């Protein structure tokens, strides 16, 4: 089950939509997310907290968050083929990535800042610490950003990133992927994740992908090829929906008298 499995569910927002939405965000399902300590991904061994996290039902500090404006975004910010170009378009398989940012109640999240970054078509990042021998593309920077519209939709144009080897095991490779950073409406919704490509056999050999225990959760990060959204003689298209945390409705909120 890949990304295309979600629209049927998405098309039926919850009945509670009309209720007031003042409660905290749903508890994070920590078994759906990767654990902090995942020894197959070696860097996590020294960077994983060992005490249990302290549960904190959301306060105003977590239920608010910065909001970004469309005026902060430039016209080429969502075009990685052109936004760093010096002498011509970036090299690689041209494609459009699009989707919606939803919450767990299947409601769109408008005004969400979506940031993305990736390696070039050869699998090389533009970064001074990058040591992979694949060539740098002088016309590819590798970063972009956009803000979701009123229906939670986003899209950007890029080239398909290459797979690349990385120092973990002697010969570990990352599958082709795009990094995503998301701001919803509250700091509690803050999320960073990665997008993979449907049908890539390298997904199932990756020590970072496998930090996620549930195959269905990995499928949720796997974008699906959408032939209908391709641009003829121009670009492929992949659909990638992203789900941020949903919020409790306050049918019987637990409040002290007088508040």
């Amino acid at each position: 089950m890949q990304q295309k499995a979600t629209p049927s569910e998405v098309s039926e927002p919850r009945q509670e939509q009309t209720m007031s939405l003042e409660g905290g965000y749903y508890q994070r399902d920590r078994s759906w997310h990767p654990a902090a300590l995942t020894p197959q991904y070696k860097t996590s061994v020294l960077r994983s907290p060992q005490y249990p996290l302290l549960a904190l039902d959301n306060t105003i500090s977590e239920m608010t968050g910065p909001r970004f404006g469309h005026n902060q975004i430039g016209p080429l910010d969502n075009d990685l083929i052109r936004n760093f170009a010096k002498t011509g378009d970036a090299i690689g398989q041209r494609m459009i990535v699009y989707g919606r940012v939803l919450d767990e109640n299947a409601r769109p999240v408008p005004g969400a800042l979506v940031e993305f970054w990736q390696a070039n078509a050869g699998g090389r990042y533009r970064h001074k610490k990058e040591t992979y021998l694949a060539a740098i593309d002088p016309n590819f920077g590798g970063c972009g950003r956009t803000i979701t519209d009123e229906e939670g939709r986003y899209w950007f144009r890029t080239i398909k990133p290459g797979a690349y080897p990385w120092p973990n095991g002697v010969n570990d490779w990352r599958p082709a992927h795009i990094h995503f950073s998301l701001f919803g409406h509250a700091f509690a919704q803050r999320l960073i994740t990665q997008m993979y490509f449907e049908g890539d056999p390298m997904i199932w050999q990756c020590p970072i992908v496998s930090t996620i225990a549930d195959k269905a959760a990995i499928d949720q990060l796997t974008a699906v090829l959408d032939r209908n959204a391709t641009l003829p003689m121009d670009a492929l298209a992949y659909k990638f929906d992203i789900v941020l945390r949903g919020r409790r409705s306050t049918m019987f909120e637990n409040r002290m008298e007088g508040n």
Partner: protein
Amino acid sequence: MFQRLTTLKESPSQTAGPYIHIGATPNWVEITGVWDEDLGLVLVGPETKGERILVKGRIFDGSGHPIKDALVEIWQADADGLYNSPEEKRGKADPHFVGWGRQPTDGSTGEYRFETIKPGRVPYKDGRLMAPHITVWIVARGINIGLHTRLYFSDEAAANAECPVLARIEHKVRLATLIAARGEENGMPTYTFDIHLQGDKETVFFDI
């Protein structure tokens, strides 16, 4: 068959990786010309209300070494305890203070720095006031899901003592991990907030 809930699952997190700065602060890693200024670098302007402070610190891994490839974000109320957010229902925050900041840890020292203001107090769910605090969120290579903590201020002992969130920390010795020590640098008050991912001084992280 029983009815089905129509809720979706939150997209699972993945590590921000070693090159988070390409996406978050490209100008800082010499990817220039895509956009002029990285988001979140400046919190305070001349018209911002409140006491100017410098928040700084390092993030240490389990071997005691500072992490040099992390990204730190902060989120805080203004000087009157209001958040500059559409979700803030209690009043209008200082329009000259965004309240959100983003900085990389330095590539050689591992230090992060924010010039900001000291926030006012914000109520807990039951109306009691929490002590002044700054939400701190860190991501990096090797961190599979962003870590969420809070910075409290060493010169707010009375407020800290009655903060309902700090009161939830069972092992009182760990309280100290959330208290930033006040100092001074070039005449500006500083608060040093070192974060320890593991070990005896492991910072209290929250599941929010």
